């Protein structure tokens, strides 16, 4: 340890050496942080999109070509084959929400709150004659809890079919799916209220099925896809069976492709950082060559030199990794709390972004960066090893 510190002191002697080392570590830290944040953002996007979709659609959605349908024994038998954790019958229809002269097109869903919450993981509390609206919709209409809004439905009643049905409801809660469009359009009513308004009795036009625990993030879509295919095989032709991501499947696919292409591009950032490290190594080699050869002359073996060299590289790498972790955590905090970092939901689909990195992502990024940093390290060591001590002493002392 003492010999390591002695050598380190020699290497870092001089203001320029310390500054260059700091700059090198910082550039490497920054490079790793950029990679972590980019992967984290993509994983976060993927995760938020999936969880947001599941919050509104469960795992599998069943609709009928006829529009409204009843949940009969045949349908229930088919559904039982995928061992559902929860089933939520839903009536959904389009309407206009009106409040103080402002109107907005909305998707009204009539739900049984408990069933819907079990199937989607979205905690919806619906009191009698109340309704719950998406946070962005409340923002757009400037509505708060306790305010009364009017919903106009496309079809009138028996006596005046050509006129819309208008009903008033008190806003009893706001809800956030995490997907901007859904938060801007969704309105939840008790199912029986909507059934009465639309006069559809016990018919529904959407059945939400959950086969995986909605409280846990979905790791692979394959299981749900298998269930969907199984269900499609069991059900008659009149039903559409779609997985929850079908609405935004192009985005999920795009993120997957982007992740692969960006990971290749991001290697360039690491390569730039590696050039910085290489520049530092060459600088140290040139500037401290005398010192190194003298140390070799007084008994520093190649083995000890190699230990020093690689311990130093490992420390640079470890410091950069810790720094990158701190930077990415800070960036994540900024995403959640600083308005400058908020994204426009209408463009990016999600209301907000977050960095989400699992241990595999950390390990991959850190290991790849270690491999990259070892390359200039090996180059530096090879340069030191190549020159015999005498040749070094003669050249450096002449």
């Amino acid at each position: 340890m003492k010999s390591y510190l002695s050598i380190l002191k020699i290497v870092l002697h001089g203001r320029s050496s310390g500054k260059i080392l700091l700059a090198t570590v910082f550039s490497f830290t920054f490079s790793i942080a950029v990679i972590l944040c980019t992967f984290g953002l993509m994983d976060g996007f993927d995760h938020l999109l999936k969880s947001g979709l599941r919050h509104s659609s469960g795992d599998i959605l069943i609709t009928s070509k006829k529009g409204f349908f009843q949940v009969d024994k045949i349908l229930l038998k088919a559904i039982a084959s995928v061992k559902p954790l929860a089933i939520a019958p839903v009536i959904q229809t389009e309407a206009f929400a009106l409040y103080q002269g402002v109107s907005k097109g909305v998707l009204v869903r009539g739900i049984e709150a408990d069933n819907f919450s079990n199937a989607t993981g979205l905690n919806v509390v619906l009191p009698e004659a109340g309704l719950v609206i998406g946070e962005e919709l409340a923002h757009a209409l400037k509505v708060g809890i306790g305010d009364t809004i009017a919903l106009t439905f496309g079809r009138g009643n028996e006596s005046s079919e050509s006129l819309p049905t208008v009903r008033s409801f008190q806003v009893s809660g706001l809800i956030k799916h995490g997907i901007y469009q859904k938060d801007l359009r969704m309105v939840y009513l008790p199912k029986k209220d909507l059934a009465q308004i639309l006069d559809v009795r016990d018919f529904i036009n959407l059945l939400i099925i959950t086969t995986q625990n909605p409280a846990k993030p979905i790791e692979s879509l394959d299981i749900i896809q298998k269930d969907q295919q199984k269900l499609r095989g069991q059900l008659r032709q009149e039903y559409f069976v779609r997985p929850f991501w079908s609405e935004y499947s192009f985005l999920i696919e795009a993120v997957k492709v982007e992740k692969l292409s960006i990971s290749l591009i991001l290697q360039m950032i690491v390569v730039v950082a590696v050039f910085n490290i290489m520049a530092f190594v060459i600088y140290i080699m040139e500037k401290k060559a005398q010192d190194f050869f003298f140390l070799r002359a007084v008994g520093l073996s190649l083995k000890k030199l190699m230990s020093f060299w690689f311990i130093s590289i490992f420390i640079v790498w470890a410091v950069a990794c810790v720094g990158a972790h701190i930077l990415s955590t800070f960036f994540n905090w900024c995403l959640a709390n600083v308005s400058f970092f908020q994204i426009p939901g209408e463009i990016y689909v999600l209301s907000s972004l977050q960095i989400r990195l699992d241990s595999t992502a950390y390990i991959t990024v850190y290991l790849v960066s270690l491999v990259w940093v070892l390359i200039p390290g090996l180059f530096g060591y090879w340069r030191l090893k190549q020159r015999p001590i005498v040749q070094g002493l003669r050249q450096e002392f002449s």
Partner: protein
Amino acid sequence: MSFIRLEQVEKSFGKTRVLRGLNISIQERELVAIRGASGSGKSTLLYLLGGLDQPTSGKVIIDNKNLHDMGDEGLANFRNESVGFVFQFHFLLPSMTCRDNILLPARIGGKNLKQVEDDTAKLSEILGVNHCLSKYPFEISGGEQQRINIIRALSLRPKILLCDEPTGNLDSKNSEKVTTLLKNLSADFNATLLVVTHDDKVASHFPRKIVIEDGQIIG
């Protein structure tokens, strides 16, 4: 049996033959001056003896060990424990105080620093550089730097003290002082002293002189 033995030692750099079949025997604690003109191969010989370089052919045997068989780790230990180098350029590291410069070989070798510190404190008192120990090399005079350099070379009580033109940068008065000092200290430390010099005056202080010309011993 001789303490240092060179058998048919040849050294070439590319096509240039620097040493041509040298055979030398040196006894333990012997004081030897290696004299020769610039480019005669005397420094190359010193580097071979110090394990800093390997001969192209032939054997360098010190204390019954062939340096060629030692490997890098063994040679590094040999240089650290058995050899003290005094170069013409004292090369004290500017990042360290004189004390740390002196302790550098001990630190590299993982030696007991307390013991080495005690030994070198006595030596620096004898050489009159006690006041320099906490100073940086650039804060002391050239003569003091050379004495610190000598203390460093002797810090681990080496069996061999190898000096490459140790008086090359000194005036004649200081040159004589340093030569006498090296002789006396080698005797005190029971070290074998080999001094490479082109200066006849310095060489005259030594009971044995090896004269090299064009890589061969001529006297």
